[in-house]
Structure formats: structure tokens, C-alpha cells
């Protein structure tokens, strides 16, 4: 494998509603910040790939307008995934393995404020037997939470994840939701969709993020401490919720094994709902010595299509700034952790 590293990452502060700026106006500053942070001239970036979802905007090919923020003239090598930007990162990493290009721009954007997100997410479900029932995204997550609790867990574990995530988010200027709460008082609040309380769910966020990857000597040249990608893998489970054991995450476990996700100091896990964090921790066999989601995670800011790439960006940032030597970023897609990506990074 060719050595590829994250050398720069930028994100917008997550907000409930970006009602002044369109997607291009949101992307321009964040892409510029990532490019300038890398020190690689814009016109020398070899490959560009984005992650976004037309269903969020309600418009076909909305990612094409996002390209206005890139500067695609003379024509560039460009691609797109209709997924979280973490999978755009995967495509960029594969593209750099070809060996003919040395750098890539990865970006993603998502506005949850434009439509009824809980219902929009229904359209990712089985269109014949599940989607016509319109089970909204929180209800689907609640099914998983219920199954997990019945496998031998307590609601207090979920409240502790919520309290810790929102407390840690106070140190993250990009987070949308941060507060100091006692887990015990959280449990006194009413259910939103049983067994999920409001604090068990992510905020609705608008946001954007951009990342620069560089290979080999270029990475060493432009970055003092590149976050070298030592392993990157993604795995998927069956579409049908009824054929899966929702209390575990075998696809995360498999991706983690293939990516070599051991001995990490920090892990940023994409767990939009509180009960999903312990499921992911167990799948990745993360011990108590691993710092999980110091950014506050998706419970503090959950811009759709952005939150996964942001986990990897946050994990990379801790290598680049010298606060960790080995970190893990995780991203999820689909209902109830259906598809999972693990990216392991290290200092060398």
C-alpha cells in the first residue's frame, strides 16, 4: 500500500439552520481553509471527491452546484458519492493508491434544516415492506435501542454517554450542542420515542467539512506531523432490519479488524444515538484507556453526510497537533449502524 496521510482538515461551526448561505457559500470558506492549511496550491490538487445527499436538498444533482466552490477550471478529476464524506475519503484514498496522483481534496456538506429529516431518512429503507409504513429515523433508532437494552443494558448507560458527550463538546467550538448535565437528572425527562429521550438523539445540524490527503513525500513536505492512514476499511450489513442482530455491529468489528484498529489512544465514533456508542466500542474492542469522542461526537453536532468525515478529521487532528500518536475515526451510514467505515491513523 502507498503511504497516504491526512494533512489538513477544516469544518464549519455546526448550526441549527444556515438560512443565509447556500451550499456553495458554505463550502467556499471551508474548502479554502483546508487547501490553505495544506499549503498545496489549489490548482495542483490531483483529485477531488465530495459526499452529499440529494434527498436532503430535495433537488437532483445538487452536488454539481457544490462544485462551484472548488474552481473546476481547467477541468479537474472529480467524483462524488451519495454518502457521508467518509466514503468520499475512501474513494480518494483508493484513487491515490493508483500512484499517478499525490493529493486529493475531500469535502462534504449537508443541511438538515431544509426538510423534515426524520421522514426524509425513511427513503433509505426497504421501499416495499418498510418505507410505506413511514417509520421515522428516531423510531427506527428506538427499535435498536430497545433491543440493546433488552440484551442486558440500562438506560443510565445511555444517559452517561449523553452527559459526557455534551460536556466534552464545551471544548469544541464547532459543536452545536454542549451543556453540563448530571446523567441522573437526564433520566427524569420524558421519552421522545421510548426508550429514547431527547438527550439520546443528535441535534439537527447544518454543516460542511473539507480534508486534504497527500501521499508519501508530498505529505512529509507540507505537514510536520501527517496523520498517516495505516488502515481503512468499510463493511455493510443486510438492508432488512429484521434479519440483523441490532444489538451488535459485526460490520464495524470486521472493518476494525481489517483496518487494524488496535492500540489507539483516541477514537472518534460516529454514533448519532447514545446506545450506538457502546455497541461500537464493543465491536472495536476499545478498552477504558481509549478516549472516545473528545469532540462531543455526533451527539453534539450531526450535519448529515458531514458528521462521519468530521470524526475522521477530528481523529486526524489529534495526530497532526501532536496530542496523540495513534487514533481511529469511524463513520456510519444507513439505519441502525447498517454500514460502517473505520480509518486508523498514526504518527510516524
Amino acid at each position, binding site marked *: 500500500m502507498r503511504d497516504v496521510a491526512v494533512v489538513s482538515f477544516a469544518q464549519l461551526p455546526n448550526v441549527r439552520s*444556515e*438560512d*443565509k*448561505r*447556500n*451550499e*456553495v*457559500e458554505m463550502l*467556499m470558506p471551508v*474548502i*479554502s481553509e483546508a487547501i490553505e492549511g495544506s499549503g498545496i496550491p*489549489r490548482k495542483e490538487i490531483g483529485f477531488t471527491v465530495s459526499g452529499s445527499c440529494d434527498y436532503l*436538498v*430535495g*433537488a437532483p444533482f445538487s452536488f454539481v*452546484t457544490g*462544485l*462551484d*466552490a*472548488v*474552481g*473546476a*477550471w481547467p477541468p479537474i478529476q472529480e467524483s462524488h458519492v451519495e454518502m457521508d464524506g467518509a466514503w468520499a475519503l475512501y474513494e480518494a484514498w483508493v484513487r491515490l493508491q493508483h500512484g499517478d496522483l499525490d493529493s486529493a481534496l475531500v469535502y462534504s456538506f449537508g*443541511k438538515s*434544516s*431544509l*426538510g*423534515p429529516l426524520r*421522514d*426524509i431518512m425513511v*427513503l433509505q429503507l426497504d*421501499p*416495499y415492506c418498510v*418505507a*410505506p409504513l413511514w417509520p421515522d429515523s428516531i423510531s427506527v433508532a428506538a427499535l435498536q435501542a430497545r433491543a440493546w437494552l433488552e440484551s442486558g443494558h440500562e438506560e443510565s448507560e445511555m444517559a452517561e454517554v449523553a452527559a459526557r458527550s455534551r460536556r466534552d463538546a464545551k471544548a469544541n467550538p464547532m459543536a452545536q450542542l454542549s451543556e453540563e448535565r448530571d446523567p441522573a437528572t437526564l433520566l427524569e425527562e420524558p421519552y421522545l420515542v421510548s426508550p429514547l429521550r431527547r438527550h439520546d438523539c443528535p441535534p439537527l445540524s447544518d454543516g460542511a467539512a473539507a480534508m486534504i490527503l497527500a501521499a508519501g513525500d508530498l505529505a512529509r513536505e507540507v505537514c510536520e506531523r501527517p496523520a498517516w492512514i495505516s488502515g481503512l476499511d468499510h463493511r455493510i450489513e443486510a438492508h432488512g432490519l429484521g434479519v440483523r442482530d441490532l444489538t451488535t455491529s459485526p460490520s464495524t468489528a470486521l472493518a476494525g479488524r481489517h483496518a487494524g484498529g488496535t492500540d489507539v489512544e483516541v477514537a472518534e465514533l460516529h454514533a448519532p444515538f447514545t446506545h450506538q456508542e457502546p455497541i461500537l466500542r464493543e465491536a472495536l474492542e476499545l478498552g477504558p484507556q481509549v478516549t472516545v469522542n473528545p469532540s462531543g461526537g455526533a451527539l453534539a453536532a450531526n450535519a448529515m453526510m458531514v458528521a462521519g468525515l468530521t470524526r475522521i478529521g477530528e481523529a486526524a487532528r489529534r495526530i497532526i497537533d501532536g496530542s496523540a500518536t495513534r487514533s481511529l475515526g469511524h463513520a456510519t451510514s444507513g439505519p441502525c449502524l447498517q454500514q460502517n467505515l473505520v480509518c486508523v491513523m498514526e504518527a510516524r
Partner: protein
Amino acid sequence: MSDTDTVEPVRSIRAPARLEYRFTAGAAQSRFLRHLVEGKILAQRCPQCGKVYVSPRGACAADGVATREEVEVADRGTVTTFCVVNVKFAQQVLTIPYVSATILLDGADIGLMHLIQEVEADQVHMGMRVEAVWSPPEERGPTLESIRYFRPTGEPDAAYESYREYV
């Protein structure tokens, strides 16, 4: 015979879906739309390549930089390409045949799409000079419909060289 041989196959299901969205015009397009109410066409110039974009989207798509400088462009220009619509479709408000055209407004570097009226469809041609016919001020809103259509000015055709870069 098993059930799978005797059961009538289901060939289709109905699964109605309805989702309502808001649209964010953004800062640049909002200012463009607001100026239409005043009978003005607002564009933006790229600080790098100098190109003038209308309607502005806040960015130069070629350079990927913000276009902050605002300039007003003329409400007249040159037809660069056009299409005669002869096909009926749902929600059609105009009687066919009618003409949709890309119009290079004087001072702009990108065409604006609009209707050409007050002329027979078979008379519309590349290089034809046209001008905006605005709605009365009290009927205008933040929409391109504040310009009802464009019509020929009667000026001589623009030379092909003047718009060849924009076809």
C-alpha cells in the same frame, strides 16, 4: 404444485411519498432577486478572472473564489442560443410555439435564460438584440418573473465575434 406456482405475482405496489422542502437562495442570489423588484439586474465580478456572473451565486465556478464585487448589468443583450418549444407538457402556461433563449446581457459574461416574445418564433436568431419587458413595479417580486420576457430591440444583429465565447 407449491404455493409459489399458484400465487398470482404482485406486479406493482403504491407507496405515496410527499416531502416539503425549503430552499436557501443564499446571500448573492437573494440580493439579485431583491434588486429585480427595483427593476435592476445585479451581477458579481470575479476578483481573479474578472468575469461577471448573473445570476450571481457568490462564487466563480472556474476559480472557486468568492465574488464579492457587485455590478449592475444592462437589461438588454444578445441572443446566443435559443430553443423553439413545440411540445405540449403539463403546467404549460404559454401557447406553443414559443421561444426560450440564452441572453448575454450587456456587461455580463454568462447567459441568462428567459423567454423571447413579441416576435414570431421562426424569426428569432443568434445575435438578435433583445431587451427586457418588466412587469409594472407594483406587480414585481423577488423572482425572475419580474421580467415578463425579452423582445427584439430592432438594433442590428451583434457580430458573431462579440458572443462567440459564450455559445
